[in-house]
Each structure stands twice: as structure tokens, then as C-alpha cells.
């Protein structure tokens, strides 16, 4: 089964929901022309990234007007959008919504907030607690928002659940320009992670990073599609806003699993037992 994906390397304006919604709708219009069945936007695509004290000011309930507009625009396809969620519990999350055919399918709340170096997400946001699979009509989808990808647990749990599509939205800065790398160190590290994840978890990885600059920090782009054998098959060139449209073969997951039945041979109970022992020694 062929699935056309459209990964939008968007350049949102910091804190400007109206402008960003318009950007999303224009991109969705364009994706309609590609015949894309799955359209993905980056992390916090509706708000921009370094929000600091703006975080609560741009937080949205799941039925807020901008999200309703995107839900409407998802008719006939599946759309992934990054936003700041004001949860029913009153907390504010770095969230990623999947809309499908005019309905809200799933919200992933970023589990691993990044709070080191230039990042301070834990100051402004509450962390998600779950890696739940989204059962889309396109297949099983696991969402890892940026730093979620830098911890093994999320991807591994999705692997156990038999995920076909790993959706990885990010707001990854461009850094590391040493001549000892080829291109940006940050983009190289992401590619290595995505290729490893796809190889180990035998699924498609859809990485969608953003473009633009926020107070001197340039976002690195590198939006790409990696197949279930770990090969990058399409990517956006350069640092500017752009998109990758790719028709991927969902059957490739099964072929990879036939060639090497990694999930069949996984032994999660060993991990369970080890965690239990760890608990006892505490």
C-alpha cells in the first residue's frame, strides 16, 4: 500500500497564532494538490519554540478555534500539528495533535522535556506520561516529539506495539559547524538517530523539523523520510522552509520484519524482570 506523506519544514512566527494558522492552512492547501494522505508539521508549529513567558499566553484547549480549523482541514486525510496544550488538569503541555478525516485522533504530550544548555522547557511546561499508539486508518502511528527521540524508552515501547510510522516532529537548532563534520553536527546526529530507530524498530521514520531563526538560534531543518531498513529516502535540502513529498510503501515494514523478525525475538519480560529487581534494591 502506497502512502503519500507531506512533511512541512515550516517557519512559524513566534507567538503569532493567527499568522501560523494561516501558514498551516496554506500548506494544507498545497498538500491537497500533492494528494498527500498524511501531512505533518513540526513541534510547536502553531506557536514557535522559544516562548518562555509567552507559553501560557498561547496555550490552547483541544477544542480552541485554531485547532478546530485544522481539524476541519483534515477531512480526507491525516494531519499532525504542534501546539501548546492547556490540559483539562490546568497544566500546560508541549503537545502534538493528530487529526484524521475531520476528527481529533490523538494527542501526544512530550514526555522528555528538554531542560539543559539552551533549553528550559521544564520551567514552562508539564511533561506527558504516556507513549500511546495512535490507531490511524493509515496504520499504527507513534509520536516522539524531539527530545522523546533521545531516550530509548518511547521508541522501544512503540516498537513493542508494532508501530508502522514513527512521527518525529522537532524544533531542532542548527549547531556544530566544525569542518570535522559534513554539514551541521545537529542534523547529522538526528539522521543517525532516525536511521538507527528505523533499523531497530523496522518502521518508517518521518522527521519534520522547522526552519527560521529565533533570537539568533537558527533551526536546522533536515526534514526527512527514513525507510524501515534505515535508509534515508527523501529529505529537504538546506535551512529554508520547504517540504518533502514522498510516496512510501507501507508494505516495506513487513518485508523488513520478514527478513529479520526483530520484534518476534524481542524479550520485553527480561526488561520487566530487571526493572522489578531494580525496584527491590531501591
Amino acid at each position, binding site marked *: 500500500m502506497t502512502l503519500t506523506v507531506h512533511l512541512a519544514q515550516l517557519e512559524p512566527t*513566534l507567538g503569532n497564532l493567527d499568522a501560523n494558522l494561516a501558514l498551516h492552512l496554506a500548506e494544507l492547501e498545497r498538500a491537497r494538490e500533492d494528494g498527500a494522505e498524511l501531512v505533518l508539521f513540526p513541534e510547536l508549529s502553531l506557536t514557535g519554540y522559544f516562548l518562555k*513567558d*509567552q507559553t501560557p499566553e498561547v496555550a490552547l484547549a483541544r477544542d480552541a478555534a485554531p485547532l478546530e480549523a485544522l481539524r476541519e482541514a483534515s477531512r480526507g486525510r491525516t494531519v499532525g500539528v504542534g501546539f501548546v496544550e492547556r490540559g483539562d488538569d490546568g497544566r500546560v503541555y508541549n503537545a502534538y495533535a493528530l487529526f484524521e478525516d475531520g476528527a481529533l485522533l490523538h494527542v501526544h504530550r512530550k514526555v522528555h522535556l528538554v531542560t539543559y544548555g539552551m533549553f528550559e522547557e521544564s520551567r514552562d511546561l508539564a511533561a506527558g506520561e504516556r507513549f500511546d499508539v495512535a490507531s490511524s486508518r493509515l496504520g499504527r502511528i507513534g509520536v516522539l516529539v524531539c527530545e522523546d527521540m533521545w531516550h530509548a524508552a518511547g521508541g522501544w515501547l512503540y516498537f513493542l506495539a508494532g508501530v508502522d510510522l514513527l512521527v518525529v516532529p522537532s524544533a531542532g537548532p542548527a549547531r556544530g559547524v566544525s569542518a570535522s*563534520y559534513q554539514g551541521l553536527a545537529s542534523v547529522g546526529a538526528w539522521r543517525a538517530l532516525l536511521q538507527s530507530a528505523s533499523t531497530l524498530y523496522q518502521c518508517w521514520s518521518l522527521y519534520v523539523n522547522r526552519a527560521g531563526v529565533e533570537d539568533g538560534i537558527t533551526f536546522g531543518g533536515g526534514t526527512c523520510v527514513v525507510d524501515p531498513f534505515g535508509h534515508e529516502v527523501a529529505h529537504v535540502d538546506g535551512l529554508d522552509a520547504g517540504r518533502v513529498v514522498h510516496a512510501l510503501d507501507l508494505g516495506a515494514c513487513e518485508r523488513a520484519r520478514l527478513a529479520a523478525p526483530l520484534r518476534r525475538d524481542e524479550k520485553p519480560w527480561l526488561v520487566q524482570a530487571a526493572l522489578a529487581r531494580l525496584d527491590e534494591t531501591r
Partner: protein
Amino acid sequence: MDPLDVQPELVEAILVRFLRKEAGKFGFARAVLGLSGGIDSAVSAALAARAFGPDHVLAVMMPYRTSNPASERDAREVAEHLGVATRKVDISAMADGYLGPAEVSDRMRRGNVMARCRMIVLYDLSVEYGGLVIGTSNKTEALLGYSTQFGDNASALNPLGDLYKHQVYQLARHLGLPASVLEKAPSADLFEGQTDEGELGFTYAQADRLLYMLVDERRSLDELVAAGFEAEFVRRVARRIAQNQYKRVPPIIAKLSMRSINHDFRYLRSWGH
């Protein structure tokens, strides 16, 4: 390969976008900068010319009466090479208007006054020209504090602040800047015969390598000594970095209220733009 080597084409791509986009957020499509005839301002000018187009960059030469005439000649060569407009503003009368009556003879104080006069000119011309002031301070001098606060370190956007001197040279070669700026010894040209390296007491090559290991790689002072740096040199540079932190941050605000600017009123500069 030198461990400090960068990929200059990548650096250029990032910095050109940085200038264009950060200025664009505030509605600016033009740039003003001081062109001294040295390497740093030549690189900033070249980046600005690429970001905004040469027709949208004003390079200002601001000699003082004791400045080396070769500086202005080199600056003109750079401007001509880049195709950017130039303006000459002699700061002698302006600086002497204060230095004379105030009887300032100390070399450092005089140099600081000149640097701040140049800042005044640039910020004024930025209004006349309708362009943002582009900075020319590199990472080496910012870490060492080898600059004048509110003088040459004043700018709206600084494309060079994360590049060591070695990397500025590498970028200058990549950008095809004239040999005159590539080959001469770096100098603030505040008094006759002054060179940066003479005044600092060490070479940029030594300082860059040390700073890179200390700041970028976060090595300990002991590790640096073990790596072959002279202990006194390591201590001196580490002290300079810490002592000059004040030049790298905005003025500190005494906290009184429940929400104070910079302490817990946190927004990016481009907030609302």
C-alpha cells in the same frame, strides 16, 4: 586539519539568514556598520552585503586624527570590493571636544572614548539610513573582554559573536576578501604601532586554541595544563574571561517586585515581531 576549522559555506548560509531574518522581523532591510580596515568589520560587511544586497549596506569609516591612514585605505578597498556605499565621519572634533577639556591622557581611556564616539555616530546614522547596526565583535575578543563596553561591542545584531578569530579569518578567505585585510596584523588602531597581540601579551592562535578547549569543550584548567598550555597563561585567560562577564550581559537590575525585567519577565527580543 585545525580543530577550530569550520565549514565556511555553512557558516555563511547561517549568518546571512540570521542577518536577513532578525532584521526583517523589525521591518529592517538595511544595515549600517563601522568599517575599520580590519578583518572583523570586513567580514561583517561582506555578510551584510550578501544578506541585504550591497545597495542596502552603509559602511562608515570613522578615523580619529591619530588613526593610521592605511586603515582608511584598506576599508575603502573592502567597500569597493563589496560594492557597498561608504561614509566618512572624522571623529577627531567630537572626541577632542571631550578629551581636551577633560585632560584625558590615559591611553585606554582615550581609546574607549573614541570607540564610544564611533558608537554614537553609527546609531545616529542608523536612523538616517534606516538600517540596523551590525556588530563586528568576535568570540575571542568577547571572551577576553578585549573591547569597549557600549563602544565597539554595541550593535543590534552580531553575526561574528560565535566565531573565534581563526574562524573569522577562514570565513574571510571563503568570502574572497582583499589580501590587505587578510594579511595585516590585527589592531584596534587606537594609538600608533598598537597591535592586539602586542597588547594582549599572547597570540590569537594561542588564545583561540585555549578558549576553544575551555569554553566549547568545557575542559578543566588542569586538563589544559596537561594538554601543554603554560599554567600561568591558562590562569590569566580564565581570569580575564570571568572578569569581563559584565561586558557580555545587559546591566543587572535590582529585584524588588514579584516580576522583574530579565529575572522573571522572560521574553525573546523578537517578542511580538
